[in-house]
């Protein structure tokens, strides 16, 4: 049996009396697309922040690729191969799309105490950056400042920047946020193409996307994993339907 790529054990985080993460266990296998769903307030945002290294858990541990990363800083986690995309687009608006990606390429190219040669004329940064843009169908916009891209294009660039760090696990925080149906479909297709190449932990409200993409789904309620299993198993789980889908369980289940 293979070791999980990401293993979360007994993770706990409280803000005053509010327990946002309550002894959570979670595994992501190499190459797996693992979706995390749950109603608002289930603690998804807090979990992402802890996985990414923005806030420290009160208790529990996070192992990634066989090493304990619970206390590692954000940038150190990324260097080990845990990259994230942001729920609210987080780019470098004054830089071009290409430069946005090249910054990410540069992050794994060693230290930046290099003061002389212009970075944006360096083929060792630009060529991989171009490749990533092409992969995501953004190559036509390579030279446009990120601020001038459409919302859909910015969401794609968001993924491109994360992907350019050559992650082993992509932490995708609502990649479909704010996308229209057409862009959403394109994003699902795009993420589907990445399957197998990189593992993904997908936090998403769009149930169509989740059930299309996920190999496994974990349902988060009140900071705990209520259930975990294949999409079919989750769909059939009566407890999930009761807790997650609430009063409109029947109608909701139809939609699912």
């Amino acid at each position: 049996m293979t070791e999980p790529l990401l293993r979360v054990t007994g993770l706990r985080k409280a803000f005053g009396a509010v327990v946002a993460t309550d002894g959570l266990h979670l595994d992501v296998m190499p190459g797996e697309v693992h979706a995390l769903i749950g109603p608002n307030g289930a603690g998804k945002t807090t979990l992402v922040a802890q996985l990414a290294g923005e806030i420290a858990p009160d208790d529990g541990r996070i192992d990634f690729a066989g090493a304990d990363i619970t206390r590692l800083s954000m940038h150190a986690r990324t260097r080990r191969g845990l990259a994230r995309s942001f729920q609210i687009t987080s780019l470098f608006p004054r830089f071009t799309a290409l430069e946005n990606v090249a910054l990410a390429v540069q992050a794994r190219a060693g230290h930046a105490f290099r003061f002389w040669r212009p970075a944006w004329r360096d083929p060792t940064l630009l060529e991989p950056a171009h490749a990533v843009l092409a992969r995501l169908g953004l190559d036509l916009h390579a030279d446009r400042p990120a601020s001038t891209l459409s919302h859909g294009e910015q969401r794609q660039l968001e993924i491109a920047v994360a992907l350019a760090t050559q992650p082993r696990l992509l932490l995708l925080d609502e990649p479909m946020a704010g996308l229209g149906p057409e862009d959403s479909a394109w994003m699902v297709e795009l993420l589907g193409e990445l399957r197998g190449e990189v593992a993904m932990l997908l936090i998403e409200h769009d149930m169509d996307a989740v059930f299309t993409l996920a190999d496994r789904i974990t349902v988060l309620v009140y900071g705990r994993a209520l259930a975990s299993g294949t999409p079919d198993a989750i769909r059939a789980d009566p407890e999930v339907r009761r807790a997650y889908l609430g009063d409109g369980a029947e109608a909701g289940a139809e939609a699912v």
Partner: protein
Amino acid sequence: MDNGLPRLILAAILAAALLALPALVEAAGRGYWTGIATHVLIFALAAGSLNLILGFGGMVSFGHAAFLGTGAYVVGILSHHASMGIPIATWPFAIAGTESALIAWPLAMLAAGALAFVIGLISLRTGGLYFIMITLAFAQMVYFFFVSLEPYGGDDGLSMWSRSRLPGLDLGSDTQFYYVVLALVALAYFLKSRVIHSRFGVVLRGSRDNDRRMRAIGHPTRRYRLAAFTLAGAVAGLAGALIANQTEFVSPAFLHWTRSGEMLVMVILGGIGTVLGPALGATAFLLLEEVFSGWTEHWMIVLGPLLLAVVLFAKRGLWGLVSRPGEVPRD
């Protein structure tokens, strides 16, 4: 986007004007303008160093005068000991004073850089409003340190016997000193224009625009910000060494917090985050001071509201007026 040729011509004219300046003002019978131009150049250097962290690094440091003053004091103290023939220290080993620019100026940069490193190490743990107040507070600490430094004149400051010595040159000559300053300022601006486009520079600018994302893609940004802060401090130290030489006098007034404010004003007036903006700003500020203070001793009553107006209405500074209007601000 590309207007390389006009820019090149503009640069050539600027260079020629700066090179010919001492001869021109001499011919016009206003030789003292060489001294004023030197003063402007030195502050262009200081404001330029501030712009590295402020304009390209997004760090609103309100304590830059501390580095300027430290550089000045290093030169002043070394020169004081040399002229008095008293060693600075006898234990653990003897350290003598010196008037050599080749030793004193690098030491000024080293001392100011070291100070910037320590202040940066603490201040950069925070951000935003905290950073502004903390840098201001630390600069005030350094100010009071020199005020209470009785052996070197305390509040009254310290006079130097002569300017630093440089082999083959006579820095006592205002014209020669002008050219040395011009060479250093030109070199610093050239190096800066390289640095901001280097890998270091793009990390610095990336961290200015979105530090969180920079860390999320794997850049340990704080160490680069600290490096920039240290570098800027060292260059401000060099500017301080030059100021001490020009005036042949150092005093806590160099470190007064209003000096830090003035340097911020120069950067903003010229155009934040542009390479040449701070030079333009330093020129404008010091010439305004020269002209207005000739009219009235109360010129600050004009400058104050002027600043408010610039902030409220002319966000991009003078550089924004002379460069293309309406352009998307890129670096």
